């Protein structure tokens, strides 16, 4: 099987879905003529035409609002917000409108739309173009949330997202667009279920998106001393957490690694669930490792230092399991 880039897998998912269903339309800034800020939608305007690949003015709330109305009336829109940081612009349409319409209207009117966006660090894009805001989404009942960390998930999770009857926020990672990999014949796990990316006995590390790869590097480096099981959460909502809890009950330890800040975060949520569900199996309290509680700085040196990397994950995992403190803790 040939390897493709993450962004090519995303494009293939969109074009396959659009070929299969005329109701699927793309709407967003620069999705057409420009081909997407990161090249994901390149060529789709030529193939599917301007009625289905809709370039918009710079009007994020209007983009999401229009997608909602289209979804309510029978289309299956994929709205694109170029950077997840702009989600603050659209929070009314997303959290008050898309998320709540089905409920407020007694189940009559669903909003089957996907909001594609991307987040994270890695391009010195600074404080307003580099955040990891998944907790903002996860905190709102009615929204679904998926974050692909692999090329195969980029394809299959997006296809799955486009089959959901409710709004899905789909957050890609800007530093993964050029990553190469194979698209599997089928998804690595069902929609809503985590995937175990590496089996191990001593420690479960729960992670997702780009941190999956830093975690896998750390697990390799630890292999001689600590056997790490790596659980890729993939879908943060809905999340069938039984795969994760089974893992933690086997290993007795859980470290959660995210690029997002830890305060009131996805990692807080996972730590709470692990504590509630695995307390009697735990050798140690669940531990969180995330981005520093600061805005993202522009300097590459500062940016890199503000989020975990494989070395830090390795140090913290070793400390947690073997009590061997890293040099910075001395």
């Amino acid at each position, binding site marked *: 099987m040939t390897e493709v880039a993450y962004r090519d897998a995303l494009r293939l998912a969109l074009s396959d879905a659009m070929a299969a269903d*005329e109701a699927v*339309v793309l*709407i967003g800034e620069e999705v057409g003529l420009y081909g997407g800020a990161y090249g994901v939608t390149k060529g789709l305007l030529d193939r599917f035409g301007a*009625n*289905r690949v*809709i370039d*918009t*003015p710079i*009007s994020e*709330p*209007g983009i*999401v*609002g*229009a*997608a*909602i*109305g*289209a*979804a*309510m*009336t*029978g*289309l299956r*829109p994929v709205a694109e917000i170029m950077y997840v940081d702009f989600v603050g612009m659209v929070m*009314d*349409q997303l959290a*008050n*409108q898309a998320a709540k*319409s*089905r*409920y*407020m*209207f*007694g*189940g*009559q*009117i*669903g909003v089957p739309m996907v909001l594609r966006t991307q987040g994270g660090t890695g391009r010195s894009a600074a404080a307003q173009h580099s955040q990891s805001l998944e907790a903002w989404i996860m905190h709102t*009942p*009615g929204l679904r949330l998926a974050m692909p960390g692999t090329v195969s998930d980029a394809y299959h999770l997006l296809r799955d997202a486009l089959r*959901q*009857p*409710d709004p899905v926020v789909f957050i890609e990672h800007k530093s993964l667009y050029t990553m190469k990999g194979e698209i599997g014949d089928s998804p690595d796990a069902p929609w809503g279920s985590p995937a175990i990316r590496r089996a191990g006995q001593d420690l479960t590390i729960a992670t997702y998106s780009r941190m999956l790869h830093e975690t896998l590097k750390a697990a390799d480096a630890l292999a001689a001393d600590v056997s790490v099981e790596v659980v890729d959460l993939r879908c943060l909502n*809905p999340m069938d957490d039984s795969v994760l809890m089974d893992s933690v009950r086997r290993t007795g330890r859980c470290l959660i690694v995210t690029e997002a800040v830890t305060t009131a975060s996805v990692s807080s949520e996972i730590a709470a669930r692990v504590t*509630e*569900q695995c*307390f*009697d199996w735990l050798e140690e309290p669940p531990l969180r490792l995330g981005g520093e509680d600061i805005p993202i700085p522009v300097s590459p040196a500062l940016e890199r230092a503000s989020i975990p990397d494989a070395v830090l994950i390795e140090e913290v995992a070793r400390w947690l399991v073997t009590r061997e403190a890293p040099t910075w803790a001395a």
Partner: protein
Amino acid sequence: MTLVNDAALHRYRTMRRIRSFEERVGEMFLKGETAGSMLHLSIGEEAVVGLTDHMTDGDTFTTHHRGHGVFLARGADPMRMLAEIGGRDVGYCRGKGGSMHIADRGLGHLGANAIVGGGIPHIVGAGITARNTGSGAISVAFFGDGAMGQGILYEAMNMAALWKLPVVFCCVNNQYGMGTRVDRAAGKQDFPARADAFGLRAARADGADVEAVQETARAIVDGARDGQPGFLEIDAYRFHGHARMDKSPYRTPEEEATGRKRDPLATARTALDDDATLDTIDADANAEMDRAMAGAIAATAPASATMFEDVYDPTTAAPQPQRARLAAVLGERP
């Protein structure tokens, strides 16, 4: 009786039903039978009928929080509306939405909204659907003068004009955004000029005269069906306070007395020469709304387990009730 008069009589009847309905909403509140007091009456704004008259099956619309009248004019069952306003199980939204979130997909109502301007961009999407499917439907957003201060309106108007969508923006200007009179909220009050600047066909009509609204709305709606999006301002006066509890201390009795003279029902009566059938229409409307109120009050509250339904599509898992989670956590402990 001429055909013109038949149509005018029909508009009068619809307006009378709206007013009678809104009066029952007030009564239900006093009886303690409404779900809360966030009840925004559209008395004085019944001339929206002049626009809804041009809408047809398949057309869709969104409204603001003061949208009871629009929904009734589009064919709503007043009993199910009042049941929803009372939080009852037979309400349009099974008692989950209430006055501010009433909707009915079958009648094209894509939802009333409690975020000022929140439902406006949805007609842009409905317009894209109509364009892509060739349905011929139009979509109309109803909102108040308060929404003229919201950025989302201007994003939506620009998109509608840019893409030549079959949509109409209808501003029911009742002079007040809650307690703030429009001259304290807008530096220049020429709202059609704003819409015109975006490329919409824009007009203002006298909300005290439903026939004038109907006449002006025709060109706006016809234009929308031909891909020329429109904007209609209906110039009206909010007869009562913002919500049921508001006694409007921010406006003078003199202003209210003058404002309430701009009564579309009274204007229509005069125009119809106080036709004898009007009294029958009034009596019928009152009797209909009395029956609707009695039916709504007699309806039962939703079963508490239904609170977990409709968050997500029923083909997917519903949220886990908290007691179930706690039982799973504590039940497993030795």
